[in-house]
C-alpha cells in the first residue's frame, strides 16, 4: 500500500516535508526591509544607554566623576559600580562558574571594560555624556601572554582567594583558572616512548570573534504598575537569559518576559549575558522607562565574546607504516580577564576531547589549562560546538605534520587511520561514543571529485617549474576530514548553570487543520520557521505551508536552552518530531473512532489514516483535526495538542571531507582559491537548499578566520583590531565559489536521523584552508606556521624558507 503511486507522490510533495528545498517563509519580510531587529524597536519614552569604557587593559580605578555628564541636558542618570553594589548587581555570574564585573569595581582587567553606564534621552546625548565622565586610572602591569601570566607575580584577579579552588578544581597560580583532563596520561606517555615515530608540534588557534552583522543589544522595560519586566534582546538563549535575570535580579521568573526578535546573525556572539543587559534592566527599574542599549561595532569586537585563543601542544605517535598509536595534547587556553566561556558546566574546555577526530586512535591524553590575561572575556563557540573547531584544527594539523614526518601522502595517512564503518558506535579514547559514520566512502568520493592524483602530479610539476625559475606560484592542496560533535546534549552530562540541555516543542493543531509549533530554540538566520515546519509536515501530514513556527518569546514558547552548538536540529528538531508523533498517536485513535474500527486497524499514510488493506477508506488529518474539536469521542479529551521535552540519548557526530586547491604567489603572499570542494554528511537532510546555504556561509567564515581575521593586542593590551578596517570580513570579491556535495549516514538515535550542519563548514573549513597554505610550502620544508595566513604572513613563510632568493 505504501508504494509511490503518482497520486501518493503528489500528496507527499504537497506537504513540502523532509528533503524538500522549500523556499523560506522568513524571506518575505526580510527582503521588504520589514524585519524586526532589536534596534528597530521604539517605545514611548524610551531612553538610551551607553558605556564609559576603560582605555587601559589593566588599571586601578581611582575615582569617577559624573558631575559634568549629569549636568548635560537630556542625561537622566549615570550608573557606576557604587550604584549597583547595594543591589548586588555590580558583579554577575558567568556561564563558566566565574563572576564578572558589570561595572568596574575598583579596577579594570581589559581594554574596553565597562566603567560607567550613561542613560540619556537619545543616543547622541548619551554619547556626549560618555565623553564628560571623568575617570582617574592608575595603570598596572599588563599581561597579554598566557604563558607569562602563569609565571608572573602580577595578580589579575585580586577578588579571588589564590589558595581556594575555582569552579573546576584546584588552581596552580593566582592567574590560573583550571586544569581539565581526559584520557589516560600514563598509557599515552608509554605509547609515545615506545613508538616508531613521534611528531611534535605547537598548534596555535588565534583569538578571533564571531562578528555577526548585527551587534548585541537589548531593550529593557520595567512596568512598575504590574511589576513585569520585559526584555527584548539579541539572545541566542532567551529562556536561559530569563532564568539568569531572575536569579541575579531577584525578580520572580513569572514576572520576566524575554523576547528575542529577529536576530541578525549570532554565531555564538549572542549566547552570553553581558553588562549591557544588566545595566539596561537596572536603568529601566530605576527610571521606570524603557531603556535601549545597542553596542557599536568597536564595542562588539573589543568586549563581547571572543573565540578560540588556544595554544595546543601536540604529540602524535605512529608505526613506520603510518598507523597512529597515540595522541597527546596539552592546551594553554587564554580566557581573558574573567572566565566567561560558554560551555556546558562539566566541560570547561568544551568538547576539546573530540580531538582524536575521525581517526581510530587507541590511546590518548588531553589536558587543558585555563589562564587569566588582560584581554576581553568570552570564549564562545564561534560557529562551532564548544571548542570543536579548535579540536578539529589541532588533529588535522597533527595529521599533516605526521605525514611530513613519515614522508607519506596525507590523504593516504588519513585513509589508513579512519574509524571504519563497522566500528560504529565507536568508543573514543577520550570518552565519546561516536554514533555513526562512513568516512572511507566520503573520503573516496571527495578525492575522486577533485581528481586528487592529477592534482598531486600537477603540484609536483609546478614545484619543478618553480625551481627552474619558470613560475613564482605554488600550488597547495588542503585536505580535511573532520568529525564534529554537536547537539548538546544529554542532560546527564550537559547543563549550563545547572539547566539541563534538553530542548522542546509544543504543537497545537487548529480545528481547520493548520497548526502552530513553538520551540525553545531561536533562529538567527538558520531558517527554523521553514525547516521545523518541514519536520512536522512529514510527521503529522499537515502541509508545511499550513504550519506557523514561533520561537523566542518566553511567555509563549516552551523552555529550551536555545540555538548554538548546532543543537537546534539534533535536540529541538527531535523534540519537534516527538511532539508530532504524540499528535499522530492521538489522531490515530480519533481516526479509528471515525472509521469505526480498532486503533490497530488504521495506519498513517502521508496525510491521513487509512484502514489497513482498504486504503480507499480513510480520514485525512484535516478531518481528524476538525473532529478533535467538534465531536465528543468517548475516552478521548477534546483538542489536538502535544508538547515534547527531548533529552537526547547521545550527541550527534556530523562529518565531512573538504578539499581546497590554492595558488600562492610567493612574492606577494597573495592567495587564490582555485577550487573548494565540500562534502558534508549531516545525516538526514531536511532542506537541501538551506543546508547548502549554511555550508557556503560557514566556509566563508572559515576563510576569514584562516586567511586574515584575528583579534590582536599589542603588549600594552590595546586591541588592534577594533573596527572592520582591521578585522577581516571577506567581501564577495575575496570569496571563492564553493562546490557542495554530500553523503547521508543517518544518526541512529535521532528520531529522524538528522545531525545538524550549520557549524560543520567552519569546523572543517579552517583546517582545509590552512592545510592548503602549509601544503604549498611542504616541499620546501614548512611544518607549521600559525594562522591567520594573511598576505604578510604568507610572504614571511616564503621569506623564512629562503624562497625570495
Amino acid at each position, binding site marked *: 500500500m505504501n508504494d509511490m503511486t503518482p497520486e501518493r507522490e503528489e500528496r507527499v510533495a504537497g506537504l513540502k516535508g523532509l528533503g524538500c528545498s522549500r*523556499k523560506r517563509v522568513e524571506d518575505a519580510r526580510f527582503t*521588504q*526591509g520589514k*524585519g524586526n531587529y532589536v534596534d528597530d524597536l521604539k517605545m514611548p519614552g524610551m531612553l538610551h544607554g551607553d558605556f564609559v569604557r576603560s582605555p587601559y587593559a589593566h588599571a586601578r580605578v581611582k575615582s569617577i566623576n559624573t558631575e559634568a555628564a549629569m549636568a548635560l541636558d537630556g542625561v537622566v542618570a549615570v550608573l557606576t559600580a557604587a550604584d549597583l553594589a547595594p543591589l548586588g548587581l555590580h558583579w554577575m555570574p558567568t556561564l563558566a562558574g566565574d563572576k564578572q564585573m558589570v561595572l568596574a569595581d575598583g579596577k579594570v582587567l581589559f581594554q574596553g571594560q565597562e566603567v560607567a553606564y550613561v542613560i540619556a534621552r537619545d543616543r*547622541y546625548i548619551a554619547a556626549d555624556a560618555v565623553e564628560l565622565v571623568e575617570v582617574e586610572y592608575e595603570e598596572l602591569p599588563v599581561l597579554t601572554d598566557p604563558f607569562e601570566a602563569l609565571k608572573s607575580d602580577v595578580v589579575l584577579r585580586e577578588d579571588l582567594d589564590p589558595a581556594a579552588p575555582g569552579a573546576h578544581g584546584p588552581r596552580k597560580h593566582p592567574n590560573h583558572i583550571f586544569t581539565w583532563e581526559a584520557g589516560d596520561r600514563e598509557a599515552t606517555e608509554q605509547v609515545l616512548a615506545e613508538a616508531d615515530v613521534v611528531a611534535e608540534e605547537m598548534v596555535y588557534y588565534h583569538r578571533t570573534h564571531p562578528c555577526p552583522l548585527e551587534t548585541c543589544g537589548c531593550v529593557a522595560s520595567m512596568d512598575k504598575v504590574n511589576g513585569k519586566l520585559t526584555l527584548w534582546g539579541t539572545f541566542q538563549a532567551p529562556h536561559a537569559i530569563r532564568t539568569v535575570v531572575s536569579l541575579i535580579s531577584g525578580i520572580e521568573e513569572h514576572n520576566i518576559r524575554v523576547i528575542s526578535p529577529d536576530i*541578525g546573525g549570532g554565531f555564538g556572539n549572542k549566547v552570553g549575558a553581558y553588562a549591557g543587559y544588566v545595566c539596561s534592566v537596572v536603568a529601566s527599574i530605576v527610571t521606570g522607562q524603557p531603556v535601549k542599549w545597542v553596542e557599536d561595532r568597536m564595542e562588539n569586537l573589543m568586549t563581547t565574546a571572543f573565540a578560540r585563543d588556544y595554544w595546543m601542544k601536540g604529540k602524535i605517535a605512529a608505526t613506520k607504516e603510518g598507523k597512529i598509536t597515540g595522541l597527546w595534547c596539552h592546551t594553554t587556553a587564554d580566557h581573558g580577564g574573567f572566565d566567561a566561556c560558554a560551555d556546558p558546566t562539566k566541560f570547561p574546555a568544551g568538547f576539546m576531547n573530540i580531538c582524536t577526530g575521525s581517526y581510530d586512535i587507541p590511546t590518548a591524553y588531553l589536558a587543558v589549562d585555563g589562564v587569566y590575561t588582560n584581554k576581553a572575556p568570552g570564549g564562545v563557540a564561534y560557529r562551532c560546538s564548544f571548542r570543536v573547531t579548535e579540536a578539529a584544527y589541532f588533529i588535522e594539523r597533527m595529521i599533516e605534520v605526521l605525514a611530513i614526518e613519515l614522508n607519506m601522502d596525507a590523504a593516504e595517512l588519513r585513509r589508513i587511520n579512519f574509524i571504519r564503518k563497522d566500528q560504529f558506535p565507536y568508543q573514543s579514547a577520550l570518552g565519546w561514543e561516536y554514533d555513526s559514520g562512513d568516512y572511507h566512502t566520503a573520503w573516496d568520493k571527495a578525492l575522486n571529485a577533485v581528481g586528487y592524483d592529477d592534482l598531486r602530479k600537477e603540484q609536483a610539476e609546478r614545484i619543478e617549474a618553480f625551481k627552474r625559475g619558470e613560475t613564482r606560484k605554488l600550488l597547495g592542496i588542503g585536505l580535511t576530514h573532520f568529525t564534529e560533535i554537536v547537539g548538546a546534549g544529554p542532560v546527564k552530562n550537559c547543563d549550563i548553570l545547572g539547566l539541563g540541555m534538553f530542548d522542546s516543542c509544543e504543537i497545537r493543531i487548529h480545528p481547520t487543520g493548520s497548526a502552530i509549533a513553538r520551540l525553545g530554540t531561536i533562529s538567527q538566520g538558520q531558517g527554523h520557521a521553514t525547516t521545523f515546519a518541514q519536520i512536522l509536515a512529514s510527521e503529522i501530514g499537515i502541509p508545511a505551508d499550513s504550519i506557523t513556527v514561533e520561537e523566542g518569546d518566553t511567555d509563549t514558547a516552551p523552555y529550551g536552552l536555545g540555538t548554538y552548538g548546532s543543537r537546534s536540529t539534533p535536540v529541538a528538531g527531535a523534540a519537534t518530531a516527538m511532539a508530532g508523533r504524540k499528535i499522530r498517536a492521538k489522531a490515530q485513535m480519533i481516526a479509528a473512532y471515525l472509521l469505526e474500527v480498532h486503533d490497530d486497524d488504521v495506519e498513517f499514510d502521508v496525510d491521513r489514516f487509512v484502514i489497513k488493506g482498504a486504503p480507499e477508506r480513510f480520514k485525512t488529518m484535516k478531518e481528524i483535526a476538525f473532529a478533535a474539536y467538534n465531536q465528543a469521542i468517548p475516552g478521548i479529551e477534546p483538542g489536538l495538542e502535544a508538547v515534547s521535552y527531548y533529552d537526547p540519548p547521545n550527541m550527534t557526530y556530523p562529518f565531512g571531507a573538504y578539499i581546497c586547491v590554492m595558488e600562492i604567489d610567493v612574492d606577494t603572499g597573495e592567495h587564490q582559491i582555485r577550487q573548494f570542494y565540500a562534502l558534508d554528511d549531516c545525516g538526514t537532510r531536511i532542506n537541501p537548499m538551506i543546508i*547548502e*546555504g549554511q555550508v557556503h556561509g560557514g566556509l*566563508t567564515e572559515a576563510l576569514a578566520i584562516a586567511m586574515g581575521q584575528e583579534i590582536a593586542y599589542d603588549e600594552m593590551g590595546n586591541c588592534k583590531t577594533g573596527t572592520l578596517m582591521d578585522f577581516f570580513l571577506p567581501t564577495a570579491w575575496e*570569496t571563492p565559489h564553493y562546490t557542495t556535495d554530500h553523503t547521508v549516514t543517518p544518526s541512529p538515535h535521532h528520531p529522524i536521523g538528522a545531525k545538524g550542519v550549520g557549524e560543520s563548514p567552519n569546523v572543517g573549513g579552517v583546517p582545509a584552508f590552512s592545510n592548503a597554505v602549509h601544503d604549498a610550502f611542504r616541499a620546501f620544508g614548512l611544518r607549521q606556521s600559525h594562522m591567520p595566513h594573511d598576505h604578510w604572513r604568507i610572504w614571511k613563510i616564503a621569506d623564512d624558507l629562503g624562497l625570495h632568493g
Partner: protein
Amino acid sequence: MPKKMHIELTVNGQSHEFLAEPRELLIHTLRERLNLTGPHIGCETSHCGACTVIVNGKSVKSCTMFVAQANGADLTTIEGLGTPDVPHVLQTAFREHHGLQCGFCTPGMITRASKLLEENPNPTEEEIRFGMAGNLCRCTGYQNIVKSILAAASELNAAKEAAE
C-alpha cells in the same frame, strides 16, 4: 549645541521637512525620525553596507553621510523598491535563490544590487562580486547572492526584450 538646520528630503516619493542638528547621520534620520528601519547599522564606518540607500541616483552608505549633506536630495530605501504585492525583481530573486539568511544585510544588499543592475544590466559573476564588494554578508558566503542577482538580471533583460 549648534543651531538646528532646516532639512527637506524626498524619501520613496514622499517629502519630509524638519529641523535637525547638523551632526545627525542620515541613517538615524531614516531609522529614527522617519521610521524606515529597513536600512540597518552594522558598523557606522562605511565598511559593511547594511545602511545602503540611494541618494540622487547613487548608492550611498547612509551611516557616513550627515542628513545636512542630503538636504534637498531624492532618496530611495528598500521600503521604496517594491511592495509585498508587487515586489522588486531582486526581492523575488533573493527569495527564490536563497540569497539571504538572517536578513540583516539584505535591505542594503538589494538596494545596492538594484543600482548595480542599472549601472551594468548584463553583469558577469565577476562583475557582480566586484560591484557588490561594499556590502558585507556574514551568513550566505555570497554564492547565492550572486546567483540571485544574476537571475534578476536575466529576468529584467527578458522583460526589456519583451517590451521592445
